[in-house]
């Protein structure tokens, strides 16, 4: 089992009135952005990630969004680069870089190779298609979203694995000299994981590529269905997938008392609006949710069948209590949350989990209390559950072959081997 930490790195302030109100996606001017606040928050979130590495998380999950306060990290590779150097043990799992918005994916291949080397092989390079918000923000053609995703993916793999120079004359990308002076440390290339919320096409594509699939804060039942779709697709492809192929991110916070835990848990719903954060999704902008060709019309119909007409999060603005009842928020003391985590593990059987914490309106202190208790009590206990339930991460069992990974073959070089000046 792999246990990771995640936060969207939300904007927080006391002056703009953005906290706890339902704002419309892509409607907030950055005229209200105070870089003094931004500087503190960036450093706070880095401090928390570094602490998460120190107290024993196996992985630090990073992501990126654009033109929105709910995720301050507009360039996930910046965060990953810093953590590559400042942390020592945890995998750096980027979920993910938004391929279709890159007009120059060679540059991305170089950045990721550098991060992989600087971290001594701790990079997991996730790729995503991005939402309409991202296409609009970087003016990436939505009608080619999937084609650009697939071509950029193929190109990056080739740039990582094929000695240059070579040429690339594709439909969307064209290079006369591909020969980056940076190659990933992990061979043949860093693991690729694919996060998803709703797209049936993405689930199937991921299974066909034998990449681990990470479901992002979906309800348990559709998560289970998506995992099943993955396993069925794998079977069609002629291989047997298992827990190593599926991962789950959801909201888990631990605290010193039940009172503190409830107060902090409710803060998931009282930060800036976040379409991925149930209970505080804000007003969905229907135009950018349905950009032409972004999600094929066929896929939208399939998604409705697979996940239900209410979509990925079910009913919008679900109250805190509802989310506690259906396990999509777990917040409590170690004693109360461990049985709930176990229920989730037993029900959907992911080989990797990410605890989404320190988000919404949670303070640095809220997050640090949780991280400390995660390290002292939760992570060790969940690790035992993983063993007992035979939940294996992609670093224990190869998601492509189903075979165990030996320490000799699969373990990256420890950072402590790095030469010091």
């Amino acid at each position, binding site marked *: 089992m792999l246990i990771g930490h995640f936060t969207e790195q939300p904007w927080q302030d006391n002056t703009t009135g953005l906290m706890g109100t339902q704002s419309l996606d*892509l409607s907030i001017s950055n005229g209200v952005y105070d870089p003094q606040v931004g500087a503190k928050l960036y450093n706070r979130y880095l401090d928390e990630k570094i602490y998460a590495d120190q107290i024993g998380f196996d992985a630090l999950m990073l992501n990126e969004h654009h033109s929105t306060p709910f995720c301050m990290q507009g360039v996930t590779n910046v965060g990953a680069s810093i953590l590559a150097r400042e942390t020592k043990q945890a995998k750096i799992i980027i979920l993910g870089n938004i391929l279709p918005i890159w007009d120059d994916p060679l540059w991305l291949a170089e950045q990721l190779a550098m991060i992989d080397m600087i971290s001594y092989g701790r990079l997991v390079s996730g790729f995503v298609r991005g939402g309409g918000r991202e296409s*609009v923000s970087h*003016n990436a*053609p*939505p*009608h*080619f979203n999937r084609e650009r995703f697939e071509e950029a993916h193929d190109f990056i793999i080739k740039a990582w694995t094929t000695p240059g120079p070579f040429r690339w004359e594709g439909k969307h990308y064209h290079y006369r000299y591909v020969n980056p002076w940076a190659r990933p440390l992990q061979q043949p290339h860093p693991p690729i994981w694919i996060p998803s919320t709703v797209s049936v096409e993405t689930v199937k594509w991921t299974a066909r590529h034998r990449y681990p699939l990470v479901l992002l804060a979906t309800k348990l039942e559709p998560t289970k269905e998506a995992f099943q779709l993955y396993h069925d697709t794998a079977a069609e492809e002629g291989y047997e997938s298992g827990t190593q192929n599926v991962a789950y991110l959801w909201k888990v916070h631990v605290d010193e008392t039940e009172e503190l835990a409830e107060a902090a848990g409710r803060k998931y719903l009282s930060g800036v609006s976040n379409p991925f954060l149930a209970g505080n999704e804000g007003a969905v902008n*229907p*135009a*950018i949710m*349905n*950009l*032409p*060709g972004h999600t094929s*019309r066929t896929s939208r119909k399939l998604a409705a069948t697979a996940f239900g007409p209410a979509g990925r999060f079910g009913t919008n603005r679900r109250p805190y209590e509802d989310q506690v009842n259906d396990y999509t928020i777990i917040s409590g003391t170690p004693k109360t949350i461990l049985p709930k985590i176990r229920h989730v593990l037993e029900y959907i059987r992911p080989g990797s989990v990410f605890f989404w914490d320190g988000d919404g309106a949670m303070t640095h202190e809220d997050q640090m209390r949780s991280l400390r208790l995660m390290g002292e009590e939760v992570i060790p206990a969940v690790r035992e559950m993983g063993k007992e339930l035979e939940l294996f991460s992609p670093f224990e069992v190869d998601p492509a072959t189903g075979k165990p990974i030996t320490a000799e073959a699969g373990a990256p070089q420890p950072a402590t081997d790095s030469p010091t000046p």
Partner: protein
Amino acid sequence: MATTSVPWTEELVEAAGSKLHIIKGGTGQPLLLLHDELGHPGWLHYHTALAQHYTLYIPLHPGCGQSDHLDWVMNMRDLAFWYLDALDELGLGQVPVLGGSLGGWLAAEMAAMCPQQFKRLVLVGAMGVRPPAGEIFDMFLVVSREYLRASFTDPASTPEAQQLYGSDPTPEQTEAWESARELASLLGWRPYMHNPSLPHVLRRLRELPTLIVWGRQDGIVPLSAGEAYHRAIPGSQLVVLDRCGHRPEIEQADEFVRVVREFLQD
């Protein structure tokens, strides 16, 4: 305006290597109509009026209706080339062409490539040229109904707009809008709905009689773009309709038909 109902038909023809869905109706010489970024809206009053004198050919652009999607078409110029090829095969000969909004951009590109293909050119609130003042309204930041509201000066007092767009869209309308928007995104995502080189090649239209019709209150493509077209096309006429937005053929249908007929008869 004449409102005698005119029967129209539709057919699927082979043209330039793919299937093209064409709406056809009327009597007289052919008149080619190129639809806009929300697709063919159905047979309207102005169709009926023009069909008294012309046989209207309304092709549904690739990917719209039952017309094949063309995977190799990456921009407006590709589409214009394909359409010229298709026109060769349709055997209409030299025809007058009328295009509105995105259809106007298409007509302008085709005409600049091959002026002798056309008898006359009518551009209505055409995209394609970057407005010297103002911006082309971004259709992708709003849903179609909001875009339509912005397309009319006063949709509430335009009966045909009310009839077409006053209530929830039918599944057929939604499908038509979505497929046309996909094409529009392909053709006009960036640069947004214009081709920077187009104004420089429009000089080729010096021998082609060209009418430019614009609503003075056009909220989608500002009138300054119409004036830019007018400057770029030697000898063109610019007619600006008052109390009129982006869809003169609906909002000022009688005046629109009168102006267009007068021009086509000259």
